[in-house]
């Protein structure tokens, strides 16, 4: 009970360190989702529309990667970015950039797989109409992504939820360095292990509130959009 009160006090005290952690977490998760979306949305749409040998295999792998263990992804990125790794020359291990890349790779299969399913369902509905209108393949992809935008918002939220709640990958590639790469999830893990429960609880409350707020905002935007666009 006392821990809970202390957590609330910490949240409302305007603690700079606390809010720096919150800001970094948001920055990393949002940037990762945007980066992943740039690749995953067109990739999912292409997988939905284009038939090629091995397509089923790619879809199965993509679906399987939705459940990829974050620590395994973290380890793979760590090996790539470590000083002796093939991308070690970039010197970005234990930086927010590495965290963004790792999280983007983690959420990319989720966004791509859900996008493929959404677009494939929509394509079944639109196929004859767009073919009759002689719409080019590139424009088909753009049209389907645009017309599925409300469903894809939910897909992006699923990606954001995964990124924001993730701890294993960012811990490994970010290093949980105070004031530099410490996020809400890594801080919660650390403070809990140290026994500083008020800070861990305060961060947990903020994390949950942020996720609810982002989802509520997106849901509201989706409803307004649906009313306007039909």
């Amino acid at each position, binding site marked *: 009970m006392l821990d809970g009160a202390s957590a609330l006090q910490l949240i409302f005290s305007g603690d700079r360190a606390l809010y720096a952690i919150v800001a970094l977490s948001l920055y990393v998760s949002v940037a990762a989702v945007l980066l992943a979306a740039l690749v995953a949305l067109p990739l999912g749409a292409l997988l939905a529309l284009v038939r090629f040998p091995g397509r089923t295999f790619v879809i199965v792998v993509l679906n399987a990667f939705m459940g990829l263990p974050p620590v395994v992804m973290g380890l793979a990125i760590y090996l790539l970015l470590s000083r002796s790794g093939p991308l070690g020359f970039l010197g970005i291990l234990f930086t927010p950039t590495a965290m963004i890349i790792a999280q983007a790779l983690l959420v990319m299969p989720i966004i791509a797989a859900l996008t493929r399913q959404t677009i494939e369902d929509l394509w079944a509905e639109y196929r*004859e*109409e767009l073919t009759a*209108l002689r719409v080019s393949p590139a424009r088909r992809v753009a049209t389907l992504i645009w017309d599925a935008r409300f469903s894809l918002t939910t897909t992006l939220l699923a990606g954001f939820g995964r990124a924001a709640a993730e701890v294993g990958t960012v811990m490994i590639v970010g290093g949980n360095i105070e004031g530099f790469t410490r996020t809400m999830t890594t801080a919660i893990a650390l403070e809990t292990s140290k026994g500083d429960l008020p800070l861990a609880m305060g961060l947990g409350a903020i994390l949950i509130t942020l996720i609810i707020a982002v989802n509520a905002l997106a849901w509201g935007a989706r409803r307004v959009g649906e009313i306007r666009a039909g």
Partner: protein
Amino acid sequence: MHGPICDLPVTFERASLLAGKVEIVREISLEFGSGATTVLLGPNGSGKSTLLRLAMGLAQPTSGRISWGGRAEPGPRLAMMFQRPVMLRRTAASNVAYALLRRDDARVAELLKEAGLSELANRPARRLSGGEQQRLALARALARDPEILFLDEPTASLDPAATKAVEDIVQDVAASGVKIVMATHDIGQARRLAGDIVFMARGRIVERADARTFFDAPATKEAAAFLRGDLVI
């Protein structure tokens, strides 16, 4: 207004389409040239919609051949309106603009006016009534500036007022020189709109005649039975 005709005539030469071992349409030999509205008449499942899809190039015959203006590939000035057209998730005006080859707001306004939808230009297309959606689909098809327009049961689920609104537009379009080929199982609609009739049953063309001859003196027992209102299966 129209460029040189390039897709007419649409010619079927013994074209058949099989789905598995089932013949959907069989040995169709037919030509759609310019002129009065052609109505494909026949009961449900007679192959009318499939014939339109073949003519539009949306399906390939499994045997025989189809040509458009003598070419093996359909050109850009074919348009089709489906029985249940898909409305894109945007406004009525944007649905029409989507089908234009280049942005032209005046043309969009003109097409919406022809379809009697000017007042609904900024309404989400999916929120329009069934009849309004059919008229919008017609306006969108016309945005392709077609020389031949295929209509697949365009009023199948509409009430009489909405049906009349669609038929009025179809007649205006036909009068402007666009070749209309329309599938319907509605005898009354065929009487109102047809210049000539292609009567189909069981995937075959049973009879082809100008509308007056067909309705006054059908040459086949199947057509006569259909016109009497008997069940032609």
